[in-house]
Structure formats: structure tokens, C-alpha cells
């Protein structure tokens, strides 16, 4: 739309351009941020006394695809009491921890979020992920294909055929419209094909001459050789097990020598679930201080926290063996969904309770990570939705980060023994709004390499959130409830230059775009590898090679990023 908007007088927080609460005007035209707008047809939004930020960029949230949908089907009880009635121009739907597609778009927009990444999509079922992403209104999206335990990848790495692996990765991103390379419990998923798992980076993967360490290093190199903007996105081995912080640090460390000094080369996701110390559940405690110390000293690593919310959740990951263990621990219903030649998935409903010692440790661990890691450009706010909590609770996490008082209010109700055994209670640090803007939008967009997102400079996509509180008149720490409320219901959300939300109500439903990476590499190499894959395809998969490909026309709005690979 050619709509012209002028957002006047707001307190602008735009960390990528170094703007820290200055009063500025932001001008929008034709869906982009421009230097200025003139004319009688300019819509003026008076943002006096309000906070203006780039629209939120959520780097890790399970919103679309086969396992998300299985989670929805599994849990009708999740939806009975949380629903959205249809309104003119808006479809009806349901929540709560696994909302239906229309509701996902509306609820993100209400919080001022405008871009969300689906971080784990099984390649064989990518068409399903794209179909659901298409049906999520308003927000822009991308998806990360699961490649760590893919047979082609493992075979190339096994034989040290890295160039071929690069070509294969280039092909799959292009063919499946993916955005980055996702690795989950490397080696563990192929082991789960036989009901097993791996316990560490140097375990042997059955029937493959390969270890998890080799998968990680191989794909890290592949990622660098292909110049993919986002580093390998990794869910580490031994998730959810006491004492696993050591494995997490080992995982971060296993690619340290590959660092080029330029930008992070490994992304570790929902680290809270991988940062436990102690040898058993009874002795469980937070390993966050050790992990934070490592991250502080090593710029090649970037993480997100996966913060626990004390509410209902639905655990769903590609970590099949972990999900089965969780079922055995809790006896809750369990879905398993292996995908041939590639990956697995598991779903188990869950509920985090304040008085429960283990859940309290989990809650503490996430916050310790966020508060002890000094560089906000390398630690991001997520709840690994819906694993640690629903995305609608992000404002609550913001509250805990900006205000020690907010943390105290919760700490009062949390298992006291867990508090005694950890450091959270002694931490005074409080995030500034500038830092919040980094960990929820600027930093995430930056590490994703989405140059048109996460900032308000000229040329950026006009994705803007205006929150109705005045940072000069309030004390963030004391008035955290006010801030939290403001983040729950954005005063305005603008997406692609259109006002989609006013005072926390969706006023317009639009269609978002799907971002993907379109890498170009040497044609000969690409042809050779595609020929190799095509020749093996029928032996590996139960579908034809051509059935695997996703045509660009399937995407409602396609936004490819051209990338020049280094091979």
C-alpha cells in the first residue's frame, strides 16, 4: 500500500542505529521507512509520551508444521476455554499453548511482533510447514529445515565431502524455501530410529561412522562456506538432563577454532533446558553461571534463553528420545513422529508449577542466563514457545528482566530451596529498554541477517510497534506492571506500512511474507550433487524426488534473500 504514515514525537528505541530513547519522528511510505513524508494524505499517529520500537522479531517459536499441528490435535483441552470469536474481517480460532493459525498472527500482532521464525521443520513435510505459515496472518515468517541427522548430510560429512555437503545444503534451502540450517540433538535422532539416543559429543551413531561432534563441525563449516547469514541453529545433546551444562559448553566449544572473528558461528537455542548442574533430579541446580561465563568469554557463540513461565505448556521438539523420557517421567500423553531419513519429533503436555523444586530451578536458570550474560546482542528472549511457555507471556519475561521487584514478587512464591541453591536472588541487574529492544528485535534480526527488519532506519520494512507508556515518567523497575501491560497490548502495530493493531485489538488482517535463502554456487557442483541425490532418492525416501520440491508459487508472498555461496 502506498499509505503514508508519520509517527510523531515518540521515544524511539532503535539499537541497530544507536537510538536510545530520543524523541524522533518516524516516516513511512509504501511499506518502507523513509526520510520524511509530506502531503494531505499522511496519516499522523501522535506517539507523544509513548515508546516506539521496531516490530518484534521472534527468533525461535514453534508456530507451524507437522508437529505443531499434531500438538493442536493432541490437545483439544488446550482450546476449550481459550478462543477468539470471528469478527468482521477476522477469522475465529482457539488458543492457548498451541493456538490455531489465525490466532497466532493476531496475538503476535497485538504484542507488536511482526516477524516470527519457525525454527524446526522436517524437510519431507516442508510443504505442510509452508501451508501453515501461509495461513498465519500479518506476521512475516521463515523456517529452519532440520538437517543434522539427515542421511545425505551424515554421509557427506562421514566421507569428508564438505563441498558436496555445501551444495546439498544450498539445494535444500532453495528447494524447500528454508532460511537456515537447524540441528537437533545431533546423532540422537538417527539413534532414536532404533529407540536409542546419544549421551555426548563423541558417541557413535549406529550404522554411521560419525559422531555428533563431527556433525556439528561439518555443518558449521558448511554454513560458513555457503555464507548463510544465520549461523547453525543448534539444540544441543542431552537436553533436559541433570548435569547437561557441561555438554552445552562442549557443544559451544567444539567449533571454537572455526571462528573467523567476524560474526558468531554457532547459535545455541533454549539454553535454559541445557544448563543444568547436579547429577540427579534431587540435586538439580542451575548451571547458568558456568554457561554465562563461557558465553561472555567467547564471542563466537550466540544463544536464546527459553524462559520458563509458570503455566501450562506443551513440549514439542524434534528431540524424539527426550520427549519419550519426559513421557516416562510424567506419564502424560505422548505423540511420537519420526520422519524417515531425517529427524524425529515428540510432544508431551506439561505444566510448570512454582512450588515444584525442579520447575523453580528451570525458571531460575533461564533468568540467570539472561542476567549474567553481558552482551545483549548475543542473548535473546524466547520461551521456546510452547515448550517453556506460550509466546503470549513474553511481556511477563520483559517484566522480570527490567525489574528486580518483579523477580522478587515471583521469587516469593517459588520453591524456597531452589532459590537458596542458586544465585538469582543475589542478582540486581535490571535491563534497560534499549536492551529489551535488542533482545526482542534488533539483536534477533541482526543475527538472522534480516537486514530490513529489527530497526527503524531508512529503507527498513515499516514494521513498527508503539507501546503506550512514557519512559521518562515512570520507573521501569518500580512500575514493571505498567510496562508489562503495555507490551501485552501495543498501542499501535504497523506491519509493512499498514496499521494492523490499535490498543491491543487487531484492526486489519494482512498477509505476511515468507523469507528464504536462495544461495548461488558453482553450477557444475550443484548439478553433480543434485544428480547424486536424485539417483539415490528412491532408495532413501518413499516419495519421488520431484514431490520433495516446493515451488515458489506455493508461498503466499515470497521474499528470497540472494546469497552468494563460497563454492
Amino acid at each position, binding site marked *: 500500500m502506498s499509505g503514508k504514515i508519520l509517527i510523531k514525537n515518540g521515544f524511539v528505541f532503535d539499537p541497530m542505529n544507536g537510538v536510545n530513547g530520543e524523541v524522533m519522528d518516524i516516516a513511512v511510505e509504501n511499506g518502507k521507512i523513509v526520510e520524511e513524508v509530506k502531503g494531505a494524505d499522511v496519516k499522523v499517529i501522535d506517539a507523544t509520551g509513548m515508546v516506539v520500537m521496531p516490530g518484534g522479531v521472534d527468533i525461535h517459536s514453534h508456530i507451524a508444521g507437522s508437529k505443531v499441528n499434531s500438538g493442536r490435535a*493432541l*490437545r*483439544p*483441552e*488446550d482450546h*476449550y476455554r481459550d478462543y477468539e470469536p470471528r469478527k468482521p474481517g477476522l477469522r475465529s480460532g482457539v488458543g492457548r499453548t498451541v493456538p490455531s493459525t489465525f490466532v497466532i498472527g493476531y496475538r503476535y500482532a497485538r504484542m507488536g511482533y511482526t516477524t516470527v521464525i519457525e525454527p524446526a521443520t522436517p524437510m519431507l513435510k516442508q510443504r505442510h510447514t509452508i501451508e501453515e505459515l501461509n495461513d498465519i496472518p500479518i506476521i512475516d515468517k521463515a523456517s529452519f529445515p532440520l538437517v543434522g541427522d539427515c542421511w545425505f548430510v551424515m554421509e557427506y560429512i562421514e566421507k569428508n565431502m564438505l563441498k558436496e555437503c555445501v551444495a546439498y545444503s544450498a539445494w535444500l534451502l532453495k528447494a524447500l524455501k528454508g532460511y537456515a540450517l537447524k540441528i537437533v540433538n545431533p546423532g540422537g535422532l538417527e539413534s532414536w530410529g532404533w529407540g536409542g539416543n546419544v549421551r555426548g559429543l563423541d558417541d557413535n551413531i549406529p550404522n554411521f561412522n560419525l559422531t555428533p561432534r563431527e556433525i556439528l563441525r561439518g555443518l558449521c563449516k558448511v554454513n560458513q562456506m555457503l555464507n548463510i547469514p544465520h549461523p547453525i541453529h543448534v539444540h544441543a545433546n542431552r537436553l533436559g538432563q541433570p548435569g547437561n551444562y557441561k555438554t552445552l559448553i562442549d557443544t559451544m566449544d567444539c567449533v571454537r577454532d572455526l571462528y573467523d572473528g567476524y560474526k558468531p558461528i554457532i547459535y545455541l537455542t533454549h539454553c535454559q533446558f541445557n544448563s543444568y548442574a547436579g547429577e540427579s533430579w534431587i540435586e538439580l541446580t542451575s548451571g547458568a553461571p558456568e554457561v554465562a561465563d563461557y558465553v561472555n568469554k567467547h564471542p563466537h557463540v550466540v544463544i536464546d534463553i527459553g524462559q520458563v513461565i509458570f503455566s501450562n505448556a506443551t513440549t514439542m521438539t524434534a528431540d524424539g528420545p527426550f520427549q519419550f523420557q519426559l513421557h516416562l517421567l510424567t506419564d502424560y500423553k505422548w505423540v511420537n513422529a519420526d520422519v524417515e531419513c531425517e529427524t524425529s519429533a515428540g510432544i508431551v503436555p506439561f505444566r510448570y508449577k512454582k512450588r515444584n523444586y525442579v520447575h523453580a530451578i528451570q525458571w531460575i536458570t533461564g533468568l540467570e542466563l539472561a542476567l549474567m550474560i553481558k552482551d545483549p546482542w548475543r542473548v535473546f528472549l524466547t520461551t521456546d514457545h510452547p515448550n517453556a511457555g506460550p509466546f503470549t507471556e513474553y511481556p511477563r519475561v520483559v517484566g522480570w528482566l527490567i525489574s528486580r521487584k518483579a523477580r522478587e514478587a515471583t521469587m516469593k512464591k517459588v520453591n524456597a530451596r531452589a532459590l537458596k541453591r542458586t544465585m538469582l536472588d543475589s542478582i540486581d541487574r535490571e535491563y534497560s529498554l534499549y536492551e529489551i529492544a535488542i533482545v526482542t528485535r534488533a539483536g534477533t534480526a541482526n543475527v538472522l541477517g534480516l537486514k530490513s527488519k529489527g530497526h527503524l532506519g531508512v529503507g527498513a520494512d515499516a514494521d513498527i510497534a508503539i507501546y503506550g507508556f512514557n519512559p521518562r515518567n515512570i520507573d521501569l523497575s518500580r512500575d514493571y506492571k505498567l510496562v508489562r501491560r503495555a507490551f501485552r497490548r501495543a498501542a499501535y502495530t504497523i506491519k509493512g506500512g499498514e496499521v494492523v493493531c490499535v490498543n491491543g485489538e487487531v484492526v486489519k488482517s494482512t498477509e505476511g511474507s515468507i523469507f528464504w535463502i536462495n544461495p548461488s554456487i558453482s553450477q557444475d557442483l550443484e548439478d553433480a550433487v543434485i544428480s547424486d541425490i536424485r539417483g539415490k532418492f528412491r532408495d532413501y525416501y518413499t516419495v519421488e524426488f520431484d514431490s520433495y520440491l516446493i515451488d515458489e508459487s506455493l508461498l503466499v508472498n515470497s521474499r528470497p534473500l540472494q546469497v552468494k555461496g563460497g563454492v
Partner: protein
Amino acid sequence: MKASSLTLAHYRSREVFDLKVYQITPIYEFRLPVVADAIKPELFEEKRLSEVLNVEVYEGSRRKRFGELFKVKEAGEAEETTLELIGDFSKVKRVGRRMSRGVIRVKGAAGIAFGEAMKGGRIVVEGLAGPWLGVKMKGGSIEVYGDAGDFLGGAYRGEDVGMRGGSMVVHGRAGWNVGYRMKNGLIIVEGDVGGFPGVHMSGGTIYVKGGCGKGAGAFMKNGRIVVLGYVPSILASFSFEEIRPSIRVESERLKGRFYMFIGDLSEKGSGRLFINADSNKHLSFYEQLIEEL
């Protein structure tokens, strides 16, 4: 009753007889389903009658006012607010939802999910009751003179727990899945019930005076099921424990030999199944297991 003296006794007696009986009748024959889940006795205490008639109901997909579909007549006084449903209510759903006091008396047939999640008060159905009667009941009592449908005192799909308290008596028969996911409370059915009574039960008591279909107590974790009539078979995941000469159900002592089974062992359950031996001679082979011990 005239309001005169201010003594406590008078005040109390004024209150008791100030509660009314309301007769509710459909104005026309319903063809489409009607959802009237706001209709419960306390609604009539909390709102004036004119406001009650404005309460929202659904007829198919059309939103309507209660007064467009039902006629309400005040018909005397009673100790508790009483709603008498006169006419065919078989297409009406969820009357008495979450009620906490008062009486609903259905003179004919009741529709789907009457008394859903009720906390107190009484529902009496003189005719047939539809499925999900008393679903997720928390307290109060339900009585049915006719037959009840499936999922009596049950739960909705996917929920952990159904009935948590209260009691119900069905003088006729009941359908399948009686007490599905029951956690506490008492269900008595005087006639036969269908398959799988007490399926997924974790507590409470189900007492069937007639016979039942297959699958009694399947997936049971705890609770008691008593069946006086014919039971086709017992699941292999139930273990025969002993013969009891009598058992107590609520305040009734039932005489007669009862086979007691414990299960569902595949769920590590410790629920108890009491089957009347005299009605189930085909199960007498279990007695040999005692001799073998």
C-alpha cells in the same frame, strides 16, 4: 408474605419462602439445537425476570433472547429457587451449567450436557436425559427417572478428569462410558449400562444395579465399580483378588457373594471391581484361582 417484624426469626422465614418456582416452556417446537447454558436457578435470584428474558441463547447459529424461545411463568414459592422445564427440552443444551444452588426439574426429556460442571443444587429429569448429563460435576445431585445417555457424569475429550463430586441416580438405564475419567463422587444406575463403565476412572464410586457391557474399568487408576447384574467378561489386566460375602456402597450393605478384581494393572491401578457372583456364573472359573493359591 408481608414484611413486618425485624426479628431474626421473621427475617429468616421471610427469606425461605421468598424463593420462587418458575415454569419454563418452549414457545414453539425447536428444530435447531438451542444452547441455553446461562439458565440456572441462581440466574433468577440474581436478575429480575425481565432481565432473564433478555439473556443470550443460541438457536442454531442465530443469537436470540431467552424470551424469544421460552415462556416463563411464576408458579408459587418454594424453599429453593425451582425451575420447572415443561415440554420438549431434548434439543436444548446445557441447562443448569455451573449451577450452585436451587432445583431444576425437567418434566420431559432433557437435552445434551445438562448440569455441566454443576457445583450444587439438584437436577431432576423425569423423562430421558441426553448424553453428557452432569459432565464434570463438582457437587450437588442429579436424579433421572428415565434412561440417561452416553458419558453420564463424564468429561470432554482430552481433559484429565471428569466428575469430581456430587451424586447421581438414574432409575432407568444409561449408555456407554458411564463415569468416564471420574475422580470422585457417586453414580448409581438402576438399570443396565452400556460398554466401558468407569473407563479411565481415578476415584469415586459407580454402582450399577443392572448389567453392563464389556470393558468395565478399562484404564482405571483408582475408584470402585460395583455391578449387580450380568458382566460378559473381565479384562485380562484385572487380577482376581478374593470373594467378598458383602460390600458396602454408601450407606447400603449389599449381601451376596461378590468377586473382587483389582486393576487396571497395566496402568499400575488399584481400582476395585466388584461383580455379583450369582448373576455371573460364567465367571465362576475365577474361584479356582483361589484354590490354586
